[in-house]
C-alpha cells in the first residue's frame, strides 16, 4: 500500500502497466466477486432464478388463457404491465444519468459508484423493455411493430422502440468504455491468482474487449474524449427516451393521459426512482462484496441529497398536474382528479404522497435520520411508492367511462367506472422482473470488476487512511476547488452538514489532506 500511496503522491493517472500496482488492495476488492464465491451466492442465484421461472410460467398461462387472466378487461385496458414498462425503464435512467452528470461535472466522489450505477442501468433497461411483450398480449405480432412493411410510423409505440433501443446501445457503450482500462490489469491479476474455467473465460473475454489497452497518452486521450462524448449523449438521450415513452399517453385523446406535462413528469420520475435504485444497488454491493473501505456512508448521504432534489421536483410536478386539471373544471379531467384525490384511487395516491413525497424530505431534513441507513430505507420505499404512482398514472384514466349510456343521459361521465383486478399472473411477472435485476447483476459482476479501478486511482479514491494505515499528515495538502462536487451540488451549508471525513479538520470537510478526502468533494 505504501508503494501505491507513493504513486499517488507522484501524480494522478498512473499507468496501470507497471507491475506492482495490479495486485493492490483496490484491484483485489474489485476482483473479489469474480474469484470468490460466497456461501450466499448460489442459494441467492437459485432463489432468484426460481422466481424468474415462476414469472415465465405466469406469462405462459397468460398466452394460453388470454390477457384476461392478468385482470385486464374492456374497462381497464392498460394496467400493471404499462406501469411496469414505465417503472423499469425509468429506473434504468437513474444509473446512467447520475453517472453521466457526475462525470461531466467532474465530481470525484462518484468514482466508486459509477460501475455499479452503469451496470444497474444496463440490466434494468432490457428487463423493462420486455414488458412490452406481455403488455401487447400477442407476442407473435410484436415483430410487426418494428418491421417496415407493417410498422406504423405515426405510432408512439414505434417511437418508443427507436428511442429505447438507441438508449440501450448508448448504455452499453457507456458501460464498456470506462471498463477498458481495467481489463488488462484484471487479466494479469487473474493470471496470477485466478484459477478455474470461469477465470480462464474471463481472461479471454478481457483479452478480446481490452487486450490492446496499454495506457498510452494517446489511448487515454481518445478514451477520455470518447467517454465525455458518450456522457454528453446519454443525458439528452435519457431525457428524450422517457419523454417519448410518455407520448404513448400524452398523445392520446383520453382525459388524464392527454397532458403536456407528462414528458417532464416522466423524466423526473425516472431520475427519482433511478437514483433510489442506485442507492439500493450500491448498498447491497457494499455489504455483500465488502466494499466498505471504498463506498463511504457519505456517498449515500450525497445520493440522498440527489434523491430528495428529484423527489421534491416530482412532488411539485404532481401538484401542478392535479392543480391544473382540477382547477380547469372540465368534466372529464375533474372527474379523474377527484377519483384520485378522494375517490376510489385515494389509497395508492396518498401512499405515494406520504412515502415518496414527504418522507424523503423529512429524512434528509432531520440530521438524526440523514444517515446511510436512513437513505437506504427511504430509497427502498421510494422505489415501491414510485411503482404505485405509475399505477395511479396508468389505471384511473383507463378505467374512466367515456361511452354515453342511454340509462344515464346526463353525460358521458355518468357511466360506471371500470375496475382493474390484480391477479397472480401480473404480480408473478412483476416480481420475476424485479428478481431478474439482482440476478443479472450478480451474474454480471462474476465477469467484470465491480469497481472502476483505473478511474478510482486517477481520482484518488483509495481507501480512507484509517483503512490503509497511512497517517493523514503524511500526505501533502492539495488545492481544493469547493465550487465542484458536493459543494456545487449541495451548497456550502449542506456540505458542512455532512460532517467531516476521516482525517479532516473538524467542521470543514473540504480541508482534508489525504487524496481521498481531497478528491471526494472535488
Amino acid at each position, binding site marked *: 500500500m505504501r508503494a501505491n500511496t507513493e504513486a499517488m503522491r507522484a501524480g494522478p493517472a498512473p499507468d496501470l502497466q507497471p507491475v506492482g500496482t495490479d495486485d493492490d488492495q483496490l484491484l483485489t476488492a474489485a476482483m473479489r466477486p469474480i474469484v470468490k464465491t460466497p456461501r450466499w451466492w448460489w442459494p441467492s442465484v437459485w432463489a432468484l432464478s426460481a422466481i424468474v421461472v415462476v414469472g415465465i410460467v405466469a406469462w405462459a398461462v397468460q398466452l394460453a388463457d388470454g390477457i384476461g387472466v392478468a385482470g385486464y378487461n374492456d374497462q381497464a385496458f392498460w394496467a400493471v404491465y404499462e406501469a411496469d414498462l414505465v417503472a423499469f425503464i425509468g429506473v434504468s435512467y437513474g444509473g446512467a444519468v447520475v453517472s453521466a452528470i457526475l462525470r461531466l461535472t467532474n465530481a470525484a466522489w462518484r468514482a466508486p459508484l459509477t460501475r455499479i450505477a452503469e451496470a444497474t442501468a444496463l440490466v434494468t433497461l432490457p428487463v423493462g423493455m420486455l414488458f412490452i411483450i406481455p403488455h401487447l398480449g400477442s407476442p407473435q405480432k410484436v415483430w410487426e411493430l418494428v418491421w417496415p412493411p407493417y410498422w406504423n410510423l405515426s405510432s408512439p409505440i414505434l417511437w418508443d422502440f427507436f428511442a429505447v433501443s438507441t438508449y440501450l446501445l448508448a448504455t452499453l*457503450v457507456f458501460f464498456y468504455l470506462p471498463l477498458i482500462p481495467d481489463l488488462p490489469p484484471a487479466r494479469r491479476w487473474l493470471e496470477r491468482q485466478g484459477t478455474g474455467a470461469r477465470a480462464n473465460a474471463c481472461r479471454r473475454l478481457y483479452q478480446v474487449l481490452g487486450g490492446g489497452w496499454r495506457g*498510452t497518452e494517446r489511448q487515454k486521450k481518445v*478514451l477520455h474524449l470518447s467517454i465525455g462524448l458518450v456522457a454528453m449523449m446519454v443525458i439528452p438521450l435519457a431525457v428524450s427516451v422517457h419523454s417519448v415513452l410518455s407520448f404513448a399517453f400524452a398523445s392520446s385523446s383520453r382525459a388524464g393521459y392527454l397532458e403536456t406535462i407528462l414528458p417532464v413528469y416522466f423524466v423526473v420520475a425516472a431520475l427519482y426512482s433511478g437514483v433510489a435504485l442506485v442507492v439500493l444497488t450500491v448498498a447491497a454491493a457494499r455489504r455483500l462484496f465488502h466494499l466498505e473501505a471504498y463506498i463511504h456512508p457519505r456517498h449515500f448521504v450525497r445520493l440522498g441529497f440527489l434523491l430528495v432534489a428529484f423527489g421534491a421536483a416530482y412532488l411539485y410536478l404532481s401538484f401542478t398536474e392535479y392543480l391544473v386539471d382540477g382547477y380547469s373544471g372540465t368534466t372529464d379531467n375533474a372527474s379523474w382528479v377527484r377519483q384520485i384525490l378522494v375517490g376510489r384511487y385515494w389509497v395508492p395516491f396518498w401512499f405515494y404522497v406520504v412515502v415518496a413525497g414527504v418522507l424523503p424530505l423529512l429524512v434528509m431534513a432531520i440530521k438524526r435520520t440523514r444517515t446511510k441507513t436512513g437513505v437506504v430505507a427511504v430509497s427502498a420505499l421510494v422505489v415501491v411508492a414510485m411503482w404505485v404512482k405509475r399505477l395511479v398514472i396508468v389505471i384511473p384514466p383507463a378505467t374512466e367511462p367515456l361511452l354515453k349510456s342511454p340509462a344515464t343521459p346526463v353525460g358521458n361521465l355518468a357511466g360506471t367506472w371500470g375496475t382493474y383486478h390484480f391477479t397472480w399472473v401480473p404480480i408473478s411477472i412483476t416480481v420475476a422482473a424485479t428478481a431478474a435485476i439482482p440476478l443479472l447483476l450478480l451474474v454480471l459482476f462474476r465477469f467484470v470488476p465491480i469497481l472502476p479501478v483505473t478511474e478510482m486511482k486517477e481520482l484518488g479514491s483509495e481507501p480512507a487512511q484509517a483503512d490503509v494505515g497511512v497517517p493523514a499528515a503524511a500526505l501533502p495538502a492539495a488545492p481544493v476547488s469547493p465550487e465542484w462536487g458536493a459543494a456545487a451540488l449541495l451548497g456550502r451549508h449542506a456540505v458542512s452538514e455532512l460532517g467531516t471525513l476521516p482525517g479532516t479538520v473538524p467542521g470543514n470537510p473540504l480541508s482534508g489532506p489525504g487524496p481521498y478526502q481531497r478528491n471526494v468533494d472535488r
Partner: protein
Amino acid sequence: MNHARQPRHVKSQCAVHAGRRMLATLAMALGVTAAGSLGTALVVAAPAGATAVGTVPAVAVPVGAVPAGSHPATERPSAFTLSARQLAGTGAHAGGVVLTARAVGANSVGLQVTFSVKVTQFEYAPLLQVGTATTGASGQATVTYRPTWNGPQEFVASAQAHSGAQLGPATASISAGATTGFSGTVEASRPDGAIGRWVVVGLLTLVACVWVTLVAVVVRVYLTMRTGPA
C-alpha cells in the same frame, strides 16, 4: 318495484300507471260511472234484484284504467327471448348482427334490455356488454352489433321486469364474420399534416446519427488499442 334501479323514463311511466290506478280506485269508491278525462271506462254492475240505485253499493271494475294490455306491476312477462340475424348488403351496418329481445305477456313495455356478447378473454367479465335498448309497444328491443371476429358468436340478453324480477338471460347464437372497423372519434383536421413526413425523416436521420456516432466511438477506441503505443 325497485325504482332506484330503473331508468328515468321507466320510472315516470310507472308513476303514470300508479296515478291512474289510484284515480280509478277513487272513482270506484265514489260510484263514478265514467272517468272520461282519464280515458277510463268503468262498468257498473248491480246485484241482481236491486231496485234502488244508490242504496246498493255499486261494484266498479276498472277496465282500461291502465293502457290496454297492462297488468299489475307485480306481474311479469311470461316469456323473454332473444334472436340474432345478420344484415346483408352494403352500407355502414352491413355485416352487423341485429339482436332482438322480445318480452311477451304482462308489463312487457318499457323494459330496459342489456345485450352482451360472450368472450373468453376476460376472466372477470365473460359477458362484454354491447348495448342496451328499451322494449317498445310490441315488447321488442333491438340493437345492432358489429362482430369483431369470425365464427360463432353467442349473445345474451337480460332485463329487469317492473316488478324487479330478473328476465333472462336469453341466449342466441349466430355464425358471423368480423365487420370492417371504423373509428368512433372525429379526427381533428391537421392543416400542417404534410410536414409530418419530413418530421419523420428528420427524426429517423437523427436517430441514425446517434447510432453511427456511438458505433464510431467504440470503433475508434478499439482501433486505438489495436495500433498500440503512439
